[in-house]
């Protein structure tokens, strides 16, 4: 419809400098093809055939009607599928799942049908002649720009910002300093690190107990090839502080004593070794043990540690070996820590050195 008018307006545009890019670039219009203009509008069925238009109308209405069905269905599902009075966890979960499917499907119907109904309406019954709107350059006219500059200068002069440097400088100083309290107020968001990262809750004589409610471990009971997840006595309950558990987690593995590297032997007891379970890369629990190769694999980034080589890194993004916890047995034959960890456990940090 606005095909013609658009063209007229365009030729009397206020911005004759802004030529069509393709033309401007080569300078000579004759060297370029001419824009052939919009293709003619093709009528749709509904534009020319009242029957088709009525059919489209009915289709749209049917879709909206279907949405109403979806809405009612959702309400029915909400109130009819009750969660009370069901015995058995499985039956309950099935009820939850049923509710989820019915509510989701009902909402889908209710929403989706409004959507395609509206789109169908627009595509079949609303005008589809392409219309033209003119663009104007973002840049303001030279007069407007000059006027704006003048206003800004006038205002600056009125405020005296230029003439009174004392005002300006003191304001800048004040504004620069005023955010400082906001920064300072964040100081109490946490304590200073201090030596917290260097310490792990193990000390000489601590009993090694099975994690998650297990008891102490008799050295004689540990089979070759087994892995035991261990905490110091007192931290094995689920109620223990997570910060402590996050540093204390240890793996106990028994190898054939001949497979142990020399470096590990001092802290080992009869082929039994204990290593920090916290990855030296980013702190995930390193707990996938391959019996054949004696490798420990971190599930997060696949750093691989060789237990026979004192848990040195043999592959992956970690750099440092897993720290060893030196162990021995007490009078009753239970595994205990010989000392605490000799180095900080877990990921590296600047002060670690």
């Amino acid at each position, binding site marked *: 419809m606005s095909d013609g008018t658009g063209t007229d307006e365009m030729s009397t545009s206020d911005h004759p400098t802004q030529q069509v890019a393709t033309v401007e670039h080569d300078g000579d219009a004759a060297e370029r093809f001419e824009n052939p203009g919009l293709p003619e509008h093709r009528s749709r069925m509904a534009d020319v055939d009242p029957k088709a238009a009525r059919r489209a109308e009915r289709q749209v209405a049917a879709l909206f009607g279907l949405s109403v069905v979806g809405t009612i269905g959702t309400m029915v599902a909400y109130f009819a599928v009750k969660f009370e009075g069901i015995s058995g966890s499985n039956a309950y979960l099935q009820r939850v799942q049923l*509710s*989820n499917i019915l509510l989701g499907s009902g909402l889908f119907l209710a*929403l989706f049908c409004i959507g395609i109904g509206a*789109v169908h309406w627009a595509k079949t019954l609303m005008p589809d002649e392409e219309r033209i709107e003119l663009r104007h350059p973002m840049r303001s006219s030279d007069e407007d720009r000059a006027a704006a500059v003048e206003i800004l200068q006038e205002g600056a002069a009125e405020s005296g910002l230029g003439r009174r440097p004392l005002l300006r400088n003191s304001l800048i100083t004040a504004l620069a300093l005023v955010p400082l309290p906001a920064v300072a107020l964040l100081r109490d968001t946490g*304590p200073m690190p201090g030596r917290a990262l260097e310490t792990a809750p193990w000390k000489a004589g601590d009993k090694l107990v099975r994690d998650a409610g297990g008891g102490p471990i008799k050295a004689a009971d540990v089979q070759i090839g087994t892995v035991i997840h261990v905490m110091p006595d007192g931290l094995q309950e689920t109620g223990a502080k997570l910060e402590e*558990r996050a540093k204390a987690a240890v793996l106990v593995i028994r190898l054939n004593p001949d497979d142990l590297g020399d470096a590990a032997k001092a802290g080992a007891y009869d082929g039994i070794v204990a290593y920090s379970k916290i990855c030296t890369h980013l*702190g995930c629990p390193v707990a996938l043990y391959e019996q054949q190769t004696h490798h420990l*694999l971190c599930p997060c980034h696949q750093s691989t540690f060789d237990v026979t080589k004192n848990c040195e890194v043999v592959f992956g993004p970690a750099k440092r070996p897993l720290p060893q916890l030196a162990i021995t047995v007490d009078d009753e034959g239970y595994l205990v820590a010989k000392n605490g960890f000799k180095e900080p456990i877990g990921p590296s940090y600047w002060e670690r050195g």
Partner: protein
Amino acid sequence: MSSTTTTARAAASVGNFTDERVGASKGVKFLARKIFPDHWSFMLGEVALYSFIILLLSGTFLTFFYVPSVGETTYNGVYAPLAGTRVSEAFASTVRLSFDVRGGLLMRQIHHWAALVFVAAIIVHMFRVFFTGAFRKPRELNWVIGSVLALLSLFEGFLGYSLPDDLLSGNGLRIAYGIIESIPVVGSYIAFFLFGGEFPGTAFIPRIYTIHVLLLPAIFLALIGAHLVLLVVQKHTQYPGPGRTNQNVVGYPLYPVYMAKAGGFFFIVFGVICLMSAFLQINPVWAFGSYDPSPVSADAQPDWYMGFMDGAVRLMPGFFEFTLFDHTFSFNIFLPAAILPGILTTVLVAYPWIEAKATGDRREHHLLDRPRNVPTRTGIGVMAITFYLLLLLSGGNDVIATHFNLSINDITNSLRLLVFVLPPLTFVVTKRICLGLQHKDRERVLHGEETGVIVRTETGEFFEVHRDLDPRVRWTLVQHDAQRPLELPPAEDENGVRRPGRFGDRVAYRLSRFFFEDRVEPVTPAELEAAHHEHAEPQALPASDDATTDRTPIAGA
């Protein structure tokens, strides 16, 4: 009909009220009939916008039931495997809202699915904008706003993922803590201040919650508002085609066509996400259990949008960490997790200006590029996608290993090599393909289309009749600029005085050469004329379209 007049009278009264108070008519005049061009690729940004609205709605529902606390409690809900275990309030409330609140599970799954769709739509939308050159002047600011939104969406997604305080999310946070620790000099301080001490502590859930539901959504709203205002002020870009120029916008009015189409599309997106949430389970936290630093979790995978960063961290060999002057430099972590994303973001945000330097172009651009017509940019884009996908793949190297029964070491080593080899390769290949496609366009314009009609001349010669392209079909193939490399001005002026800014010029010149040295220029009328003469013998048929004569010419063309 009386009902019609009643409606009309009501509308008039509302209209009068709003106009006399806020001058609503001016707004209607300005906005209602605004023209927007039509193309499927313009819907990608809409998907992002609508997912955001869905996130606000479903997220609000979740806050009614979620308890942002790591205070310990005993789970005694309906899920038997967890019965009697000590869990955090955050975890317990997440399970409770999933199983005890009708529609709660659906809302959680809608929220999670919408978040995945949100980030995906933003990223695909960005690629659309990139490949079509929609970021060029005057839209650089909207490109920057969009980039910031993309970046924030990753953070927002990660924080939301962390809130249920389950085993997987806890491991994700442990990794985040480790990454912060790797920052030189201040790492452990920042970690302690953010988490309120050692990991995990008790402060992180309420803090993450406030940032996730208040701070970031407010920033999102402001930036999305600015994004849309700029869209209206600058008017939407359009694909080149007959009748489309740099000074017009061709399409349909906002009211009523786009209100119906875009409004309807919101319901379609919402409906589809509901359907996904009805049938596709996502993040079943009850199966993972509450966070505890000790248990194992194989196949630990973050949400997909964090995968590329996780992948980069996985690929980095450990020897990048070293100790110097009694201090640890964890570059095996800091490099892939902080410096790499920093560099990528900087290049992303700066790209409009980098390319403008190469073109030396200060004009406004409202007509989109066909990606083939800017081979170097298209090559760079595909290179970026390749790099991104390789990192994403690296983030799943363990999954690949277990599914295809391959060695994790081989996969990782191959990927370490491929991230350096494959992206440049795809750059070269893409660029060549683009140039080839441009050659094909020229071919079509110069020689017309095959008609399938074989003619035998009197002398017994056979040839196939070619028909000139319809001018409207041809226009799309020849409308673009032939961008040539910039010329380097002489280093000294005529008086032998060294010109200032020579270095900058040389950079621009090099860049321009890189972008535009290999090029295929569009056919000119003269070339077409010459091609016709060359084939004078087998007279080409004139364009068959009968409606070429009464075409409205486009002014300025």
